[in-house]
């Protein structure tokens, strides 16, 4: 109970998203840890789409790729969908038409419901029939999985409450499915839901929405962006929250500028411009946008202008797979732009951290007068996650860094923009229009510590060397890594961002088998001392990340000086969120001594043949 995964295969544009969202939220409201992964195509209508829901009483919310139940609603993908069901599992399908013989398997149970026929008989209009079919299968699932129908109906009321006719038909559809399943099948299935109390004080939210709220709360007043999946919803959410929370009560006008730019080059420039005059400004984009923004990122680094950039990663290179997740931008964001540059990067692992790190990003950008990246990914940004409720401390005040006031300028002998007066590598800046003494020329061309144009080697190097010290010096001010230590562990895992769930689950499952590993999850770049200590303190370290070229491992090699040989790359990068199995297989298959190895046949063993072979090699 409360430990299973099911997958819903539909066609995009048929309204299944709202039904799937309803199922997720109903399970969440039953107090059970749950996660949902929306695997959607880069398309509006007609292509296959899937929604995976994992229920885990233990709170493991990483993707699980073995499904107990498949809701097969798309004949176009029947063949591959049937294959993904574990032996002994179930397939729910539309029995309005017979299944082809070659699809049948003897090791799974087929549950046929004549969904199309039921909808055609009961509802009018082609669109309504298609839409309500999703609600009917939701009703079937409610019976099979013992979903609390009261919760489901309350959710329907919240969604359609104002539209009586719609609410009635949805109620009827969900009941139809529920009753049919109760009548024809042995309900509930052995794998079903049991109410828990695990979600008290929790919310169900996606990372982009949480990041957008963070921007509102940090006091951001300017957002410039260009639409790109999977970051679009961040700015959409920001605009939505501003419509609600940032209107002048008297005039109804906005206390914010949300500018849809003509491209990412312009978006980055607008953010730099708005920051230059003193606004808290940000953009949100994905890999292709980062490529286009790189020139301005270099300018902001060199001219020392605060800039906040959210990179919601998708698979690259080039257009890649726009609706699939990856951690393929790690190396790019760390050193974005030509010339010698290095940037502060924050890595949230879930929506809760998207909210917190959004706020931190503005503080860091202004304190260090430099671009700060918040790097999430499609899985974090667009999928719903159960996280502790977001909290806000009303005592918070923005860290604006060193911005000289008119009074301070008045009392100064002379202001020099890039002169490190305090010995902390951070000169003071002025905002245009503050005071005649504060004027200077901001430029991306060579400049000396006084802000003057230069082509002199020493004067140029003087500023560049300070910039290097400034960014490296920021390492200890960044969010500390998350560390989990296991007694006696000689192996370590270093990971980042959305790999968190898969890594922690893998750690638990490895421990069950007697393999102890320590885990460090990096939350900021440049790396702090804990990262180096962790690398030095373990015989062997597995670096778990989601890209082909082991980019995090590369960064660790470049930045810490720890020998490359000590680190082994592990991960998956084909566009799907990381599973614990990916991690376990990678570690067990790496061909290194993992310590205690358990006997061959463990009840909890990983099912995959590949994994078994790996273990055999160990023994």
């Amino acid at each position, binding site marked *: 109970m409360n430990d299973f995964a099911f997958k819903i295969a539909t066609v995009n544009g048929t309204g299944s998203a709202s039904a799937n969202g309803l199922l997720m939220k109903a399970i969440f*409201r039953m107090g059970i840890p749950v996660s949902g992964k929306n695997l959607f195509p880069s398309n509006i209508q007609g292509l296959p789409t899937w929604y995976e829901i994992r229920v885990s009483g233990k709170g493991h919310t990483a993707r699980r790729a073995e499904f107990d139940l498949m809701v097969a609603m798309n004949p176009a993908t029947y063949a591959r969908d049937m294959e993904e069901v574990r032996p002994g599992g179930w397939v729910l399908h539309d029995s309005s038409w017979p299944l082809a013989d070659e699809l049948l398997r003897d090791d799974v149970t087929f549950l046929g419901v004549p969904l199309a026929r039921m909808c055609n008989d009961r509802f009018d209009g082609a669109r309504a029939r298609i839409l309500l079919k999703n609600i009917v299968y939701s009703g079937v699932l409610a019976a099979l999985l013992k979903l609390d129908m009261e919760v489901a109906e309350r959710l329907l009321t919240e969604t359609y409450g104002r539209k009586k006719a719609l609410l009635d038909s949805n109620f009827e559809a969900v009941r139809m499915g529920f009753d049919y399943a109760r009548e024809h099948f042995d309900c509930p299935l052995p794998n079903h839901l049991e109410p828990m109390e695990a979600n008290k004080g929790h*919310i*169900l939210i996606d990372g982009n*929405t949480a990041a957008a*709220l963070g921007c*509102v*709360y940090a*006091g951001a*007043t*300017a957002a410039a962006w260009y639409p790109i999946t999977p970051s679009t919803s961040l700015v959409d959410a920001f605009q939505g*929250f501003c419509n609600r*929370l*940032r209107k002048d009560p008297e*005039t*109804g*006008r*906005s*206390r*914010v*500028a*949300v*500018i849809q*730019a*003509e491209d990412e*080059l*312009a978006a980055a*420039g*607008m*953010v*730099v*411009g*708005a*920051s*230059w*005059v*003193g*606004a808290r*400004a940000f953009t949100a984009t994905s890999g292709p946008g980062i490529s286009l923004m790189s*020139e*301005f990122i270099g*300018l902001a680094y060199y001219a020392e202008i605060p800039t906040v950039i959210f990179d919601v990663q998708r698979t690259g290179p080039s257009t890649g797979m726009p609706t699939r997740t990856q951690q393929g931008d790690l190396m790019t964001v760390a050193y974005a732009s030509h010339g010698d540059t290095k940037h502060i990067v924050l890595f949230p692992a879930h929506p809760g951290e998207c909210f917190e790190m959004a706020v931190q990003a503005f503080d860091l950008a202004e304190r260090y007068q430099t671009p700060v990246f918040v790097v999430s990914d499609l899985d974090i940004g667009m999928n719903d996650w159960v996280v502790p409720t977001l*909290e*806000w*401390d*009303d005592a918070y005040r*923005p860290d604006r860094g060193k911005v000289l006031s008119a009074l301070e300028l008045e009392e100064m002998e002379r202001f020099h923009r890039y002169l490190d007066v305090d010995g902390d590598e951070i000169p003071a800046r*002025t905002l*245009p*229009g503050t005071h*005649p003494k*504060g*004027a*200077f*020329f*901001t*430029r*991306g*061309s060579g400049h000396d510590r006084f802000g*003057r*144009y230069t082509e002199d080697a020493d004067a140029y190097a003087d500023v560049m060397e300070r910039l290097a010290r400034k960014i490296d010096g920021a390492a200890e001010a960044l969010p500390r890594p998350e560390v989990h230590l296991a007694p006696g562990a000689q192996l370590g895992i270093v990971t980042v961002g959305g790999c968190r769930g898969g890594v922690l689950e893998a750690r638990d499952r490895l421990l069950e088998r007697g393999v102890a590993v320590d885990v460090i999850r990096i939350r900021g770049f440049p790396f702090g001392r804990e990262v180096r200590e962790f690398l030095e303190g373990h015989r062997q370290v597995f670096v778990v990340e989601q890209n082909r070229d082991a980019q995090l491992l590369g960064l660790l090699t470049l930045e810490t000086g720890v020998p490359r040989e000590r680190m082994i790359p592990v991960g998956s990068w084909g566009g799907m969120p990381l599973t614990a199995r990916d991690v376990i297989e990678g570690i067990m298959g790496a061909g290194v001594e993992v310590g205690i190895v358990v006997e061959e046949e463990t009840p909890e063993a990983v099912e995959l043949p590949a994994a078994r072979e790996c273990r055999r090699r160990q023994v």
Partner: protein
Amino acid sequence: MTYIPKPRVRHPTLPTNALGLTRRDYEGSMSTLCAGCGHDSITAAIIEAAWELELEPHRVAKLSGIGCSSKTPTYFIGAAHGFNAVHGRMPAIATGAEAANPDLTYIGVSGDGDSLAIGLGQLCHAIRRNVDMLYVLENNGVYGLTKGQFSASADVGSRAKRGQVNRLEPIDPVLLALTLGGTFVARSFSGDKAQLVPILKAGIRHRGFALVDVISPCVAFNDHEGSTKSYRYTRDHLEAAVEADLVLPTAEITASYDPGAARAVTLPDGSVIRFRKVPDDFDPSDRDRTYAYVRGRQEAGEIPTGLLHLAPDAPDHHDFLEMVETPLVNLSFEELCPGADALEDVLAAFR
């Protein structure tokens, strides 16, 4: 370029404006452009316009991209905040800055390579957004810093210094701006300060994007026989079609002009643009007629100059974004952060 501070010597009889500043106070550092460069004349016109408008130097933001023209903000209003952006991307910097703090006076200087080739998209969208700024396009038809390549404004048949003939159609910034709904479209010549200064002043006071295309010959690479952007060619073909003056609100009472004799357009800030000379069959408020007029004169081999189109009351960037009047940078954190209680309310939808 080098940084050479000019000696600060003030002659007691130099005229001052209402702020007590002389023209010298609106100068910048020494120009490092070639002797005779049209850009330096434009710099002088900007200095004159800023002095006459009594702009507070530190309340001016001067911006540019990359190229010879983009060097010039260093040479005027030394006490203003400057921003030398990346190539062709000054409009984005200006758009963001002006959105967040509209209380500054924004003067952008760009060139034909910066604006019409690498930065064409940014220029177009800044025009569409009607960002409140003066945008001076110093147009010489050639890339100077890289030594003589044709730019996108080079005319068909124009001959480069090394002999090649341009065969590509030019992008005409005036026609472009008219097409995109520009609200202030002017063309002038670096050698016609009498026409240029009033245009610059009017452009600064205009609420919206003021595009001023200034033909500005390049003495090093495009001032030879066969060039259509040389001093000689420009002087021979230029037709100062429209003459206009800016009359500030304070001066209006004493201004001696007869409203019946010339057309006058009042700007939102109360200043008046008085058209002294307007061709027959021409109406600066009628975008289509202006377009037809400019095309017609060009077909006849002329370069008509002046303030060619004006829509003083068009909505600007702030109107499109429905923003509050208070500059965003002046809003207090209390006005921006909704607080913990509001967060509770927002999160109710996520439970």
